[in-house]
């Protein structure tokens, strides 16, 4: 029984005919699992997670065959019921820590708020727990940081505070939406290490949205590659990296600078993600795919199991069984 089960998730902004930003996404996450979601900007990674957290507002519309988390049908929950889950069992860390914290309140206040909301901790007990959380995210001199305001913290420090807030309710699932993109390279490694340590320590599931394939290779067990709102390949980490079955996965991997060593230019996939008005009738990658066939331009491929992974392609690559 998986912790999170997403079946045929669609997110649209506008009426029912609007182009979906997330288009028929199927995804599941087991307890204590690390899943990475990769894909270029605009592929629907963040929107998927926002939908899960209930952070999509009108005119955004969510529909799904199933959206279950920890036994709750997230589609059926009332606002009040959802808020008991969100921020506690399912928490999220955002991309830019410098704007994610409220500038008017101290670090302590913002952490204690979660403790009061979900665990009923108040006063000294809440402060004590907030202090422990700051220690847990390895903030130096945590006592003095409790009364600090966000503008007094560096980016890395702010992200640690954001993580402390997210893990305050001891979540079963932590969603990290490009948690290191806005940080210095040296800090990035520290934050990743912290997230993974916490994940192991608390045995929580971690969904890691990232652009950084190197991070994925080192951290995740499973990876979901998204393109234009669809999952195009979902597979285990070493296999997907060694023998990508979807042309888009292959192109993503080829774009890692190290893979182009000695070449004049980095490998790229020409073109851009299809927008609102140029969404192809067939496979969404067909205008950019180097292996495209006529058939691909007519019909959309389903996400089918192949040798190593689930692949959304009529002509998957690397299918020879070793």
């Amino acid at each position: 029984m998986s912790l999170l089960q997403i079946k045929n998730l669609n997110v649209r902004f506008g009426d029912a005919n609007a182009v979906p930003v997330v288009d028929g996404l199927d995804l599941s996450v087991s307890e204590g699992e690390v899943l990475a979601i990769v894909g270029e900007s605009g592929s629907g990674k963040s929107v998927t997670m926002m939908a899960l957290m209930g952070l999509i507002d009108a005119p955004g519309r969510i529909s799904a065959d199933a959206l279950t988390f920890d036994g709750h049908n997230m589609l059926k929950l009332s606002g009040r019921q959802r808020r008991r889950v969100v921020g506690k069992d399912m928490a999220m860390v955002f991309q830019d820590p410098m704007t994610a914290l409220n500038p008017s309140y101290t670090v302590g206040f913002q952490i204690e708020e979660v403790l009061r909301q979900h665990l009923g901790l108040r006063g000294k007990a809440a402060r004590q727990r907030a202090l422990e959380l700051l220690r847990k995210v390895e903030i130096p001199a945590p006592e003095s940081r409790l009364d600090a305001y966000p503008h007094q913290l560096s980016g890395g420090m702010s992200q640690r505070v954001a993580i402390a807030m997210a893990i305050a309710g001891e979540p079963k699932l932590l969603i990290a939406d490009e948690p290191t993109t806005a940080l210095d390279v040296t800090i990035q490694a520290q934050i990743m290490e912290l997230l993974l340590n916490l994940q192991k320590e608390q045995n929580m599931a971690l969904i890691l949205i990232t652009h950084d394939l190197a991070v994925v290779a080192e951290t995740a067990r499973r990876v979901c590659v998204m393109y234009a709102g669809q999952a195009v390949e979902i597979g285990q980490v070493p296999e997907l990296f060694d023998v990508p079955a979807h042309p888009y996965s292959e192109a993503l991997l080829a774009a890692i600078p190290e893979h182009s060593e000695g070449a004049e230019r980095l490998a790229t996939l020409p073109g851009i993600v299809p927008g609102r008005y140029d969404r192809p009738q067939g496979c969404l990658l067909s205008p950019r795919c180097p292996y495209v066939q006529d058939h691909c331009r007519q019909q959309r491929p389903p996400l089918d199991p192949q040798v190593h992974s689930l692949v959304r392609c009529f002509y998957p690559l690397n299918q020879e069984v070793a």
Partner: protein
Amino acid sequence: MFSFIARRLGLLIPTFFGITLLTFALIRLIPGDPVEVMMGERRVDPEMHAQAMERLGLNKPLPEQYLDYIGKLAQGDLGESLRTRESVWNEFLTLFPATLELAIAALFFAGVIGLLAGVIAALKRGSLFDHGVMGISLAGYSMPIFWWGLILIMFFSVSLGWTPVSGRIDLLYDIEPKTGFMLIDTLLSDEEGAFKDAVMHLILPAIVLGTIPLAVIARMTRSSMLEVLREDYIRTARAKGLSPARVVFVHGLRNALIPVLTVFGLQVGTLLAGAVLTETIFSWPGIGKWLIEAIGARDYPVVQNGILLIACLVILVNFVVDILYGLANPRIRHQR
């Protein structure tokens, strides 16, 4: 912080000189002089007139008069009224609580309703309520105060008879002025019904005086709130599972209030200017009415020093707002 205060205080000196010079000159530019006004319609005997002017020291050349005035000010002497022979400072102290009471009531009215309307309009952006609030506040902002006051008096006082037409309290009551605030004095007195009567007297003038600040606060709150609601930290607050009310009021409004607070401070000047008209319309015995009467009587010391005192007050309030601004916004507090 200290250097900030010192810098601000340094700026006050030229401001003071400007105000004294301006009021001194302006009141003397109005045709007529105190003696003529006192004599009224009667033909003024030139000799008597000259004697009276000499007694008041108004026959000296203007630069000399100004230097006399400044010299007295420097000694803390605000002079006395030409009409009542009462010291200007004492008259100010007696009348100021009435204006303060009216201003506080007006700001309370404007603040509570303006903030609520602004927040709701921002939350329901584009709705009928939003358009309604913005339309009405534009109308409120553009409305001449004296006209608005008269309309309200005609409707609520004359037609419906709900509220009294003018004054602070019915003549039936004999209230001892302990604090100068009628609401408090009536509560302290044992006259039955006096408090309610004082409240009824206060409602219309407070609404009239509060209308422009209300409009400004509602519009400012709305736009500030709209901006804040788009911020990342609002998303973070929602992701914590906090209730919508807490997200809006604790995380949103607190930040949205920072620019509103500045506007609030600036409104105090508008408010005192508005008090002049409002008090005249409602015969409210405050400093606004006092000044109007003093101008009519060419009561030079009252006009000059009354305006100077009001100017000091506006400066003081803005000073306090600046400090409050620092308290509300931790980023500024730490800069100083």
